[in-house]
């Protein structure tokens, strides 16, 4: 019983651990109650919506619940030949019920996502169905439209059997599950999402690089200048930060448009001719310029906060030990700013990868990003499950980057201020 004898007792003979727990219990409860409102808030506003989004992106129970009998009957069908009478009858009964409940429209929309042409034959079926006689539904349905006799359509229907599906994710990377159940790419002329993903990552990457190149000297100046100048410079950095995002983007539109200030200036100094003004917005250039400017403070501030802590005597030590100013900078100063660089780059990259307003306003067709596509599906096509799927893919991408960063630099090294 060594563990018993090793236990330390308080002077009253209670085991020390127990006594400590008792003494701290009150504090623990207090601490928990203090954070409880925030925790609740986070759960309601953050955990729950993301969970809902994840669920929505894979949820396909609507179709499953609309055609219960059909999918039950289809269980035995091997999908090679046309299904037999049993399936047709079940489908007829399910559909009739939907028509009576007036919810068949939703089914038509959903099935049309799966295979084009479903909508029209469902509508036709609805009209003809009223005159159907009992029995032999297979022939009666097939007579409504020749597509009903096409096995492809029945296969498409069968694919919607499962209550949960990952088809939206496939769609997000321009792929789909074909009739044979294989995952293939969509035809080349319809691969829109891949371009957007690549462009999003490209823009986010270059915006990060540009921000870094511009922010580093600024942050260094901020950290080393005497207080009265650095305060002024700090205000210059923060002033845009306090201005509305929309205002800043709009001012870039004024600056960059073809008849805008920048073009006017270039014409005036004779750099370009008046009838040959370059397009500086409604393309990627506009996105780059505006996003870099808007995200710059997110790079400056973490860099500044790290540089502020680096003692100037370190650079002096580097120089007095014989390092040229460049060597002293590169071997001593720069490595010490890596936590700030990491934090800044991570912040800017993550913000840039999900950027929405700026690309939407100045990006034009060639400068829009994946988030604009998500917004489009949220607002225009109302395909929320697809928008959720893409949103989650974006989130996963960010988490992967975070993970890689953690492996390379270590999150503990991040300094945000």
């Amino acid at each position, binding site marked *: 019983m060594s563990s018993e004898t090793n236990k330390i007792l308080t002077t009253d003979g209670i085991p020390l651990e127990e006594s400590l727990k008792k003494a701290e219990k009150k504090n623990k409860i207090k601490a928990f109650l203090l954070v409880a409102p925030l925790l609740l808030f986070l759960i309601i506003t953050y955990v729950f919506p993301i969970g809902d989004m994840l669920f929505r992106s894979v949820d396909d129970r609507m179709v499953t619940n609309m055609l219960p009998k059909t999918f039950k009957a289809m269980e035995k069908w091997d999908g090679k030949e046309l299904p037999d009478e049993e399936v047709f009858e079940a489908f007829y009964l399910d559909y009739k019920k939907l028509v009576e409940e007036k919810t068949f429209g939703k089914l038509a929309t959903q099935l049309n996502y799966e295979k084009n042409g479903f909508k029209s034959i469902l509508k036709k079926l609805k009209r003809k169905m009223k005159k159907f006689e009992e029995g032999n539904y297979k022939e009666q349905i097939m007579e409504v439209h020749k597509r009903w006799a096409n096995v492809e359509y029945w296969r498409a229907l069968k694919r919607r059997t499962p209550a949960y599906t990952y088809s939206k994710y496939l769609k997000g990377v321009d792929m789909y599950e074909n009739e044979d159940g294989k995952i293939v790419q969509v035809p080349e002329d319809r691969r829109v999402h891949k371009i957007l993903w690549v462009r999003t990552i490209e823009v986010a990457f270059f915006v990060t690089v540009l921000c870094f190149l511009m922010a580093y000297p600024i942050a260094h100046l901020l950290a080393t200048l005497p207080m009265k100048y650095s305060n002024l410079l700090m205000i210059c950095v923060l002033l845009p930060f306090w201005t509305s995002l929309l205002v800043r983007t709009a001012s870039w539109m004024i600056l960059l448009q073809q008849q805008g200030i920048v073009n006017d200036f270039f014409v005036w100094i004779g750099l370009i001719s008046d009838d040959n003004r370059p397009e500086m917005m409604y393309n990627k250039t506009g996105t780059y310029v505006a996003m870099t400017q808007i995200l710059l403070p997110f790079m400056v501030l973490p860099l500044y906060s790290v540089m502020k802590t680096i003692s100037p005597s370190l650079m*002096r030590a*580097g*120089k*007095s*030990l*014989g*390092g040229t*100013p460049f060597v*002293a900078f590169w071997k001593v100063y720069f490595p*010490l700013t890596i936590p700030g660089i990491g934090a800044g780059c991570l912040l800017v990259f993550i913000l840039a990868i999900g950027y929405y307003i700026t690309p939407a306003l100045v990006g034009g067709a060639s400068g829009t990003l994946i988030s604009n596509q998500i917004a489009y599906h949220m607002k225009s096509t109302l395909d929320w499950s697809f928008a959720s799927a893409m949103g989650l893919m974006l989130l996963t991408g960010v988490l992967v980057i975070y993970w890689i960063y953690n492996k390379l630099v270590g999150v503990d090294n991040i300094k945000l201020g």
Partner: protein
Amino acid sequence: MSKNSEFVKFDKVDKSYDGKVLVVKDLNLDISEGEFITMLGPSGSGKTTCLMMLAGFETPTNGEIYLDSNPISNIPPHKRGIGMVFQNYALFPHMTVYENLAFPLKVRKIAKDEIDKKVDKALSMVSLTGFENRMPGQLSGGQQQRVAVARALVFDPAVVLMDEPLGALDKNLRESMQYEIKHIHESIGVTVVYVTHDQGEALTMSNRIAVFNDGKVQQLSSPDKLYEEPVNSFVAEFIGENNTFQGEVSDISNGKCKVKLKEGEIVANPINVKSKGDKTTVSIRPERALINPTKKLDNNYKGKIEEVIYHGDHTRVRLNVLGNSEFILKVPNSSQNLDIKLGNIIDISWNSADARALDPK
């Protein structure tokens, strides 16, 4: 080998940061090769500025600094070959001890095995062998200090500058480091320019001390001379303890002067007074005033004990002598027979040579 007595030479150096105030005024200072010289002074006295000018981080506003007879004002810091120990050590926190020490050697493109040898030697000099792979953050203050010293010496610089290197250490460590640095200096014979505001440190370590105040060197001499024979009242006040009397010279003859105080008169050694009527501050070291002297000296007075403070090895006694109630005496604890009690009146006396009549405050 004859040693260059002007190895480092400050020649009429002025320094101003803002064009209005001179931080260093007309500094002329010669440092000989292998010397340990300390710049001592209160903060803001210009001592660190002098060091920074020598290191090359500040440029003199006027005048020139010579290193081994070459003017160095236009040489950037990294080409001066001067080692420096900074106040907060300035160890590179992202490098191991080995890498810190190898830095000055690597930038000089020294071969790898040579670097290893030199680093080993430097580390053994500060008794830190085996610490090569530690990061500075894993070392104690004293160890970091030693690494900083080793790093400043590892590339065999002609001069090493130390800017209050022991300021951040606790008292015991500071004392042992003082001896350590002194021994290192003695064993390798490098020229050291040391800046501190701690007079004890300056007295223990240096060959010579330059006392700075108000941008000027007040006195440049060996530690014992500085203590025994301060040339003005600032030095007397700044170095060690000091009893003072303010007065006016009433007579001056035969290397002695009489100083008239508010109450009474004392005989003193005229240092900064020239003629009758000069105002003066007379300075007497506490240990130079004796209680109940066996031999008659030329200054004898009575004092009333106002305060007795026990200090272990000695007792400090505050007396009222000649109207000065801040007169301090140090009584060694071995002298048991003395009747030191609050309120007692005792005889004290001192030699006129030890009462230095300096400039008035």
